[in-house]
């Protein structure tokens, strides 16, 4: 809304802040300093545990993902469809899934799994299983990063009971900071995707007597297929 009351309220709040801070609008050197900080954001203290070479980052990612109640399988590209089918069979889940319409996922030989029936598109309330790619994995905490877009509907991350995410080893990074740089490089500095979900294990709640139960609103199971390259 750019209506007059909104503009008046905006001025009231901003002027109130400036009055309390005993200054007017930021100008001159003070403004330049803040603009410079915004353009070149300083990093906080580095977290050493994720400062590793790439193979060790992959291992750390898998360890933390499992510690956070996700399951992990490490496979070659040709084995991805087979691992998905085997995972569903192992867990007595239907061989039926909604899959993100992404070129990366389309590159796998799903036809090799005769029993597996896939529907391309967004997540629906009736879906029990979803298969998506992942924008990145964060080794520091075993966290998946999902960037929304036509190739990756957000509903696939949230609605089904079981979420299978296919993550390439080369997309595993140390910490959040590397994810931010990849987002800026991939989408433009001023244009994040509509939604960036970072997901650390299955949905959970501790709201009844502080005891963790999995599957509060999002998936009860998160299975991460880490693809060797």
């Amino acid at each position: 809304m750019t209506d007059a009351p909104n503009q008046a309220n905006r001025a009231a709040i901003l002027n109130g802040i400036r009055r309390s801070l005993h200054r007017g609008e930021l100008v001159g050197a003070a403004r330049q300093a803040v603009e410079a900080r915004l353009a070149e954001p300083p990093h906080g203290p580095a977290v050493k545990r994720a400062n590793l070479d790439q193979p060790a980052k992959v291992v750390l990612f898998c360890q933390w993902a499992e510690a956070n109640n996700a399951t992990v399988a490490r496979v070659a590209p040709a084995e991805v469809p087979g691992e998905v089918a085997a995972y569903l069979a192992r867990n007595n889940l239907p061989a039926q899934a909604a899959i993100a319409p992404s070129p990366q996922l389309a590159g796998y030989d799903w036809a090799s799994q005769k029993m597996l029936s896939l529907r391309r598109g967004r997540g629906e309330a009736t879906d029990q299983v979803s298969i998506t790619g992942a924008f990145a994995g964060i080794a520091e905490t075993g966290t998946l990063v999902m960037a929304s877009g036509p190739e990756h509907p957000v509903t696939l991350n949230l609605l089904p009971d079981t979420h299978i995410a296919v993550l390439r080893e080369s997309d595993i990074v140390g910490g959040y900071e590397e994810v931010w740089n990849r987002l800026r490089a991939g989408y433009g500095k001023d244009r994040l995707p509509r939604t960036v979900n970072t997901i650390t294990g299955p949905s959970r709640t501790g709201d009844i007597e502080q005891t963790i139960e999995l599957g509060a609103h999002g998936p009860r199971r998160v299975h991460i297929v880490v693809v060797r390259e």
Partner: protein
Amino acid sequence: MQSTAHDFKDNVGVALADANLQDSLAKLKVGFSERRREAAERLPEFEALRDCARDIKNHALENLDFYLEEFERKVTALGGHVHWAPTAEDARRIIAELCQSMGARTVAKSKSMVAEEIALNDHLESLGIAPIETDLGEYIIQLRHEPPSHIIAPAVHLTKDQVADTFFEHHRKLGFTRRLSERNDLVAEARHVLRQKFLDADVGLTGANFLVAETGSSMLVTNEGNADLSNTLPRMHIVLASIEKVIPTLEDAAVLLRVLARSATGQESSAYTTLNTGPKRPGDLDGPEHYHVVILDNGRSAVLGTEMQDMLRCIRCGACMNHCPVYGAIGGHAYGWVYPGPIGAVLTPQLIGVEEAANLPNASTFCGRCESVCPVRIPLPRLMRHWREREFERHLTPRAARQGLKLWSFIARRPRLYRALTALANRALSLFGRAEGRFHTLPLAGAWTRFRDFPAPPAGGTFHAQWSRRRP
């Protein structure tokens, strides 16, 4: 929310006598604080991250106008809208108008303390719009018509059996006719009931843990995924956030996220951390068509530049209440308004007035645990002491207490008199208490002896007297 902070002493009496509450609080004392300690010890950089988090929030507060304008510019550029609400009433009106513009009958709400602060649910209900709380804890207390008792665990005051009774009562009409007794069954039933409500909702309303100025994103941290369903399924997403939630950049968010989950629940990371930036993009298969951010002041801008500014650093992790012996004894409802515990004792007098909330800053032993665990190092005892001074200045303290303190300060500033009087009192107490070593009643100390015995001082005189004898 109607405050009962002025009835604090009565509220405390009720809380101490509530057996269910005391059971729940006993679990809280070991759960959260132990897990926080373990998480902090697992990360060698944790203390350095806390310093950095404090500095980031201070920097953001000192340039708050700049970052809010930057945030607005970015939101607008991507097709979202920013609404400015100086008061709670403004925010209620703006949100109601947005809901009405969608012809909304239901609103899927993700837990927001700011929404509690502005009493949003009552307002929406009065207009025939049904707000549906989707965080499990908030859902439970909404069914029970109770306010939250903790900022991150709103139903922490309830036992599993109480939740089972509540669900049995309210879900029966939906066809769930069995009273459940297992926690996972209760969670599954709530998931089932709420899933349909998510799908039916016209508007999703969430709070925000942070607003990122650099990208115009609202950042939400949850474990259940309810906030994500709220901002993905309905056609409109409304974010309600107060002015101090804005931070400069994504790098700053990374630092704050590292201290937030560890301080709150002792997790390395919460299950879901989500950045929302504007409405659905061309080609997107899901997401809201409309994205609105309502920025609330409600008295906060007046705190900037004062000795109380530090309170605005708070990132609402709840660590101060999890570690507070007073909160641990009385729970959150006794504080009488939205924000309980040490941070509540500091925020509430600011937001609803020291006259209403004068008792809250007195509910502290100044043991300092809150400050020692605060991820952004808010000097909570100092801020509570400030409110005690304001209370005293405004003559809100009871007359007897004021006169007692005056007498005390007269004596305490005169060392000879002090020593003479304490020596006398010491002698009298040792003499009369010699037989039992304790007093069951004592003049002027009824409030103490009603609940416990007062120990008689051991022989040997006052501390001063003993010290001067022992000193070489």
